[in-house]
């Protein structure tokens, strides 16, 4: 039995109202590649944030034993000084700095008041060689592709003298070849004695590199599989990831009436606005009928939000091609205003960031997307506006002392209701709901589900984008599965199960 490098013992981390981690145990041996798998929100990233000191010692319960010592990390620097380095999913490089500058950001060579640039670049080149990059360290980061940027991140971690390297979804933005090269590099490091933890959704990759696999579900560690002894087939892992009690969390819809096709999107392709050669939506065709709830399931970064926003008046992306047909008529929407006029609504994923104006009242937020209906010659009928806001507060049972209350003072669930009210008041035919229940409690979720059902019953077409599988399964009439910018599967809800949806994603990840 090899020496244990890291042991996390009964880690419990609670956020207000949510238990994100519940008695999690993790044991990593020296020189192994340990994989963490689980659904979005299962608690993988939280666990790694506890380990790296992003959530400082004292904000969680349990012990971290590293190299035989109990550790109390108060900030990232503390864990990094011990050789624990985390590489986040989102690349954190500054585009307009050179590779060398990025690599030693916050870890500068030379003296504090006098950076030694010669040393910086010569060391940077040395680490770049270790990760197999031949580019000069004086190249600007914006000039290299994402595959190489990921390698720079790793080189940056090596420069911090990493002994335990944590890679959070390292291949999520890479193509097949780059991914494979990265995984091989990990195996190479292993030979040199490096210990690594990899978080990944791509089970084939996990099976390729990992020695042990720990499965996390709903904030608890379910099991740890040893790749040499146990069965690590994808089916086996998926079962561990998703098996759970499906109780009555979703309201049933009575007499579902599904009408004609309301909206159809054909061969929709969208490019990234900055990395203009990257396709974020690739040849997607979907449709939604009157009175139907269509789920789009996909992991984060699959291109779901990009698809929705590009449909909604081209509010995201460039080089958009494809056909959009509303009620049988092809339309070309040029702006959100235009989209709203064509009776489309997009309820954004990030209600605080781009859904609501937090410093404004419920009243002003409710009327925002359809102010014209409340005004004559641009003069707002403020009495009517008040009435509308009150009506929606009652209808959606938003908990608030008055409609003059600032939205920023409401709880997440009530904010979500105001956001829904805003778009319901815009009187759309098609509602695209992007993660409508993210970060809200179970009770509020149920109420949101009821609202969705009511909308469908009223003949609206609803597209429900979610990364929560049970939600998609519980709410949809039909499900699209999206992965890596493409629609990789479509099935009626009656045929869909957690297992075969995950299987769709895994299959597409392998390029089958």
């Amino acid at each position, binding site marked *: 039995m090899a020496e244990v490098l890291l042991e996390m013992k009964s880690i419990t981390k609670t956020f207000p109202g949510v238990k994100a981690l519940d008695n999690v145990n993790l044991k990593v041996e020296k020189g192994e590649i340990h994989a963490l798998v689980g659904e979005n929100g299962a608690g993988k990233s939280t666990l790694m944030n506890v380990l790296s000191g992003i959530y400082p010692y004292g904000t969680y319960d349990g012990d971290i034993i590293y190299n035989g010592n109990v550790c109390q990390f108060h900030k990232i620097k503390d864990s990094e000084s011990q050789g624990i380095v985390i590489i986040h999913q989102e690349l954190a490089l500054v585009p307009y700095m050179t590779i060398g500058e990025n690599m030693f950001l916050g870890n500068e060579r030379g003296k504090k008041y006098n950076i030694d640039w010669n040393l910086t670049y010569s060391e940077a080149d040395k680490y770049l060689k270790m990760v197999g990059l031949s580019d000069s360290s004086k190249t600007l980061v914006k000039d290299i592709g994402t595959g190489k940027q990921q390698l720079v991140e790793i080189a940056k971690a090596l420069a911090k003298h990493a002994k335990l390297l944590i890679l959070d979804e390292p291949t999520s933005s890479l193509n097949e070849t780059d991914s494979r090269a990265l995984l091989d590099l990990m195996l190479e490091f292993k030979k040199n004695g490096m210990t690594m933890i990899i978080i990944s959704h791509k089970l084939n990759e996990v099976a390729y590199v990992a020695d042990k696999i720990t499965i996390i579900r709903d904030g608890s560690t379910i099991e740890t599989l040893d790749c040499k002894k146990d069965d690590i087939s994808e089916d086996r892992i998926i079962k561990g990831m998703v098996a759970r009690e499906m109780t009555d969390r979703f309201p049933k819809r009575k007499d579902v009436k599904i009408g004609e096709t309301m909206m159809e999107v054909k061969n929709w392709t969208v490019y990234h606005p900055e990395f203009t050669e990257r396709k974020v939506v690739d040849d997607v065709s979907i449709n939604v009928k009157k009175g139907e709830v269509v789920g789009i399931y996909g992991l984060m970064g699959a291109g779901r939000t990009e698809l929705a926003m590009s449909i909604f008046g081209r509010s995201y992306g460039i080089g958009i091609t494809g056909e959009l047909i509303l009620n049988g008529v092809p339309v070309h929407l040029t702006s959100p205003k235009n989209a709203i006029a064509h009776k489309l609504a997009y309820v954004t994923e990030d209600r605080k960031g781009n859904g609501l*104006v937090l410093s404004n009242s419920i009243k002003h937020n409710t009327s*925002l997307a359809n102010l014209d209906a409340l005004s004559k010659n*641009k003069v707002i009928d403020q009495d009517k506006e008040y009435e509308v806001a009150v009506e929606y507060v009652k209808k959606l049972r938003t908990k608030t002392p008055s409609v003059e209350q600032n939205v920023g003072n409401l709880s997440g669930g009530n904010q979500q209701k105001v956001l829904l009210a805003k778009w319901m008041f815009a009187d759309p035919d098609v509602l695209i709901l992007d993660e409508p229940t993210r970060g809200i409690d179970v009770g509020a979720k149920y109420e949101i589900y009821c609202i969705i059902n009511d909308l469908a019953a009223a003949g609206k077409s609803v597209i429900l984008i979610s990364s929560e599988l049970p939600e998609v399964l519980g709410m949809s009439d039909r499900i699209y599965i999206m992965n890596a910018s493409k629609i990789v599967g479509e099935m009626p809800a009656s045929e869909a199960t957690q297992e075969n949806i995950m299987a769709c994603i895994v299959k597409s990840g392998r390029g089958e």
Partner: protein
Amino acid sequence: MKSTDLRSVLKKNMMTVVLVVVYIFFIAMTNGRIFTPENFNNLIAQNAYVFILGVGMLMCMLTGGNIDLSCGSFVCVLGAVAGLLSVENQINKTLVLNTPLTLLIVFGIGIIYGVVLGGMIAFLKIPPWIATLAGYLAFRGLGTELLTKASATSAITNFPPALLAIFSGTIFKTDSGVANIPCILLGAVAAVGVVIMNIITRKNKIAKGYEADPKWLLISKSIIEATVIMLVMVMLAFDGGIPVALIWVAVIMVIYGFVCGKTTIGRHFMTVGGNAETARLSGINNKLVMFGAYLNMAVLTVIASLLVTSRFQAANSSSGTNFEMDAISACIVGGVSAYGGAGTVMGMVIGATLIGVINLGMSLMGIDQNWQKVVKGVVLLAAVVFDILSKKGNKKQ
């Protein structure tokens, strides 16, 4: 906490309370000299441009804390152009234009600058403070150059009386010390009008079952508003009558108060400043809003420039110096958010008046110019700190 108890009403109108306290302080310190008809008139005449530029700056700041640094220098250029066109001078000896043509051209220049500036900020996405810093520098140079070339004294005077009459002086003029009847009558009409408006608004709210102010608040609010209007007008009545500048200010404040408070245009400005992404995804044309803010600012700058030029009956190269800072200060002291999305015309008016009272009071007390600047700086900072602390306090509740 109920929104209609005395404490919260006072808290909501904190700046008004501060204004009253400061005013009483200066009455005491100047032996009542600040409370004379002449100084009432001075207060309005000296600060007319602050209100006009302040309301333009308010619209810019609403869109996200954006400012216009160029308006002060632009005031100088516009004054110079007005002088060059309407008064015989060393550059323009032959083609002296009449007042309507002069105004047409000056407003035309304002609109052209507004379009260019708004275009650069809204469509080319040049940060507003950089785009307007260019104007701040260039217009000061241009204005000075034009005036130096036009006159040996670097100032154009002898503006045509027709032009001066539109932007300065008093209407229904009487001798100082004599009660001016039209002025008092207008004051009475305005005061009664405001009270009736208050009563009707409250009645409507009650009739429709909305939350309305309690009776005591309605009565005290009406009394205070009517008293202030009457006080100002009676004071002015004893110093010659209604200043033309006051009419300009009052009309523009009423128009912009309405636009900001009651129309979709005002709401769009607030929303863009409150959350630009939300605004965009709610179908608001953010670029058009930014464009409008700066076009509007340039047009208001024309009016401010003509008011100032007419008041001094001269265009000179130092005219408009620091006007942009006065306008920004008025907004900040008046509770306009430096980050955008919040602020009212009434707040800005109170802020501008407060700064004006402090200026006038200190001058009457004979305080040194340099110390006046120190005090103004401290007041500005105190207003912002107060604003942030009170917001923090609200959150804790």
